[in-house]
């Protein structure tokens, strides 16, 4: 893949030069660091861009997130959802009025719990993507039923569809699309380790060819306390501890443990220094908001870290609402809406609203029909994109008529996606700075779709 003369390698060199570096010995880490430092001085501040993925683990229910609310659509929605339908009278305050003409042919309201997001939609800072999901090729219901086209593997399986959204391949994928994307900008950052950062747990999304994601806690990095003082008064013991836990090993698992420990120590030193005294105002009290707060703090410290291109991952658990949908889901969305709003406000305050794009993702949507008091694993779903660069206040994509037996739904009420994850990701990647041929490398099935159909920016 990474031949010395490959197009992405050439582009990598070109980019590196554009960022103000001599390209002679780029593969050397030490020179990359120097390059980053030089770039930090010479590149204009607005060249910074970041993507923030908010992953909703469990499979978010799309219909109680974005609710059809005009009379005809609501009637179909309520008939299909029975006991799990949100009451229509609760939707008046969060009905959305999109800009421009066209649109999905029905009116939607945000779930009442997502009320904090409505102002961002109205200000044109938030877009809504309709019915996006994993697809290999554009797929009709007849093609799905007849298995006449290739389908994404292991549909409806949590872990595999999580992986598909993050990597465009089922569990076991070697790299994620954001990792492949940031590989294109490897020279842009002084610290390669701060390119992909997760505050939301292990994720393949950030894994590229050279590095996987760097893990932070909600307070930032975690220090190894034993290394901060002499172990029982013995500097020899402390020095040996540092050596033992970081020295390269032959055994492949030991090697990985050593690499992570070394990275932990090194990154802690740098990140701790960069974040010292950096505070971001706002209400970041919930678990999701705390993750977004450390992301905001790292973004605020971007110049000290020499960062030009970053992707962040945060996550929220609990969306697998097979039961108790009416009780559990609004609380989750309440946390989500508040946290996204606080984060967007923080980006505005930091003056980077146009340079940071935040998006939601989730392994799948859920069934339209009820299983008694919840919904089951589905396929397509709706998602939000926030940021100053987004052409917000409108919908992207299409939504079918709400009819379980209609052409828009398969397997008894599962939304058949009409926008591929590849298309969604490509729109984000294009904004991030990737070129068209590069997007094809990052998103393997993009070539089967209209790559520019989702003109989010």
């Amino acid at each position, binding site marked *: 893949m990474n031949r010395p003369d490959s197009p992405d390698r050439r582009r990598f060199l070109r980019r590196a030069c554009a960022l103000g570096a001599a390209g002679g010995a780029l593969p050397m880490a030490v020179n990359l660091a120097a390059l980053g430092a030089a770039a930090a001085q010479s590149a204009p501040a607005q060249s910074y861009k970041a993507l923030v993925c908010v992953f909703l683990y469990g499979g978010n229910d799309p219909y109680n997130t974005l609710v059809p609310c005009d009379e005809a659509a609501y009637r179909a929605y309520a008939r299909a959802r029975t006991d799990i339908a949100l009451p229509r009278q609760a939707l008046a305050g969060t009905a959305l009025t999109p800009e421009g003409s066209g649109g999905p042919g029905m009116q939607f309201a945000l779930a009442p719990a997502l009320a904090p997001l409505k102002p961002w939609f109205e200000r044109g800072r938030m877009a809504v993507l309709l019915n996006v999901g994993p697809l290999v090729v554009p797929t009709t219901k007849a093609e799905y039923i007849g298995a006449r086209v290739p389908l994404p593997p292991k549909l409806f399986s949590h872990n595999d569809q999580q992986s598909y959204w993050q990597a465009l391949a089922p569990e076991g994928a070697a790299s994620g699309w954001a990792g492949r994307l940031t590989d294109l900008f490897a020279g842009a950052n002084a610290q390669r380790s701060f390119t992909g950062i997760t505050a939301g747990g292990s994720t393949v999304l950030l894994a590229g060819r050279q590095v996987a994601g760097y893990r932070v806690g909600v307070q930032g990095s975690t220090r*190894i306390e034993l290394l901060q003082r002499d172990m029982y008064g013995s500097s020899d013991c402390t020095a040996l501890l540092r050596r033992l836990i970081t020295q390269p090993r032959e*055994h492949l*698992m*030991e090697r990985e443990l050593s690499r992570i420990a070394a990275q932990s120590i090194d990154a802690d030193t740098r990140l701790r220094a960069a974040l010292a005294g950096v505070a971001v105002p706002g209400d970041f009290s919930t678990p999701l908001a705390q993750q977004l707060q450390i992301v905001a703090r790292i973004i605020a410290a971007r110049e000290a870290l020499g960062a030009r291109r970053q992707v962040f991952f945060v996550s929220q658990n609990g969306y697998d609402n097979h039961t108790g949908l009416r009780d559990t889901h609004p609380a989750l969305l309440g946390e989500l809406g508040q946290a996204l709003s606080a984060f967007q406000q923080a980006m505005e305050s930091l003056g980077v609203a146009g340079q940071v794009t935040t998006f939601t993702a989730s392994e799948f949507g859920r069934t339209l029909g009820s299983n008694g008091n919840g919904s089951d694993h589905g396929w397509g779903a709706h998602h939000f994109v926030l940021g100053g660069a987004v052409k917000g206040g409108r919908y992207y994509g299409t939504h079918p008529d709400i009819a379980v037996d209609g052409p828009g739904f398969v397997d008894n009420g599962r939304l058949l996606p009409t926008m591929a994850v590849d298309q969604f990701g490509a729109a984000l990647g294009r904004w991030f700075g990737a070129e068209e041929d590069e997007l094809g490398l990052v998103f393997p099935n993009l070539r089967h779709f209209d790559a520019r159909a989702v003109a989010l920016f």
Partner: protein
Amino acid sequence: MTAAPPSAADAQAAFARYPKPTAGQASRFLAQATFGPAPADIEAVMRDGYAAWLDAQLEMPPSQTHFDWLIAQGKNTEEFKGNGINAPLESTLWRKFISAPDQVRTRVAFALSEIFVVGVSAITASWPLFGAAGFMDLLAEHALGDYRELLTAVSRNLSMGCMLTYRGNRKEDPRTGRHPDENYAREIMQLFSIGLVLLNDDGTVRLVDGKPVETYTNADVQGLAKVFTGWDLDGPETDVGFHRRPMALNNALHSMAEKRFLGAVIPPGTDGHLSLARAMEVISGHPNVAPFIGTQLIQRLVTSNPSPAYVARVSTVFNDDGSGRRGNLKAVVRAILLDREARFPDLDSPAWGKVREPIVRFAAWARAFGATSVNGAWAMPDTTDNTIRLAQSPMRSPSVFNFFRPRYTPPVTELARRHLVAPELQITDETSVAGYLNFLSIYVDRGWEDLQTSYAAEMALAGDARALVDRIVLLLAGDAFSAQTAAAIAAAVEKIPAGRPRDRVRAAIMLVAATPEYLVQK
């Protein structure tokens, strides 16, 4: 293709011919079979040999259950009725990990709890800690029993019914379009029995026309979902007893429609008990079960990447224990732990072994150095926090997918390039490596609450740093630790004045337990 695996009888004969183990070999065996070697167990294994020691363990009945202990401690009161006050659960789980005499059963039950996953916070019934405790008891009861009975007991268990939301699941209603909850139907196949793709007996993916074959479709899930309707808790929630009873069937809520899944057809009008029995028969009879469950048990106990031949030998025993019985877990555990690949691996192989689970590391420290509760309270912590604890805590997985997945491969590594997996590395990151060392430095230094040790045996050796380190290495890492590293640790420990023997002991333990050499169990 691999050669035909030996029959169970051949394997029996081979096990009996194994030479008596050295202390280091015995220790390494106990790290696989138990929550960690204790000095007395090392001596017993050396004296009796692997097979005899193991057979004695396998014949032991379950020791006092978590449920009974919690009642004896008076935890079945109003105070513990709600969720969020589950601390006594940690007490009893760690109590058995560290001190139960039936160590093999306890360890296998823990391994099963990472396949049949229940998280205490998901238990939507009163006294959730009793639900989680009872579930672990259920796994212990069946850990050395019959796979189909285990699967049935799990499927009838209220805590699992809560975890995967089929407690109270109702039959379909054509009038409203309501369908049965599909959650358990999907996960019992994906996670508890057969997995997603057809496997060969040696665990490799079976290819048809060069492609993997998925084991079930969404239609199978929908068909099987009807089996898991009509089940809910048995009796009132006036005392904790309902957690011990299997869920009861309300046939009025059970789907009487035809149920089609995995090629089986349960005819219309079949009641809940018969449908469940038939479903358990069909699922547990699927040829994938042996390699799918066998591989995961090997991974939990012995090594992340067993050879196909090792998996095939275990599958053979799963499919027939030698007396024509299928799914005899006692025989499977025996086959896993006594297999020649487990007992006589190439310790220099760069891929052999597994990353020790953080939970097992902590328990192994206690067992190695005789730490025990000084007052019987076992005030153990929730160890989920990843900055100062273990990033893993028993019965507290956030989802049914456990803390890590059996096929996890850390991306951008030599492991990935060689198509090797390392499940435990899914919870190993820049934060958790620091968190483990931070927790280690606390409990090695001063125990945890009432969990205490005098380090008496180690203190006696502290004047001789080399002997001290050798003992610690033997107890923690067995015969898989380099002399070079041990010597380096001894040299550093020697710098601590001999007049502070306890500090020498603590420093030596921390240094050994921090090394990647120890962290990868061979």
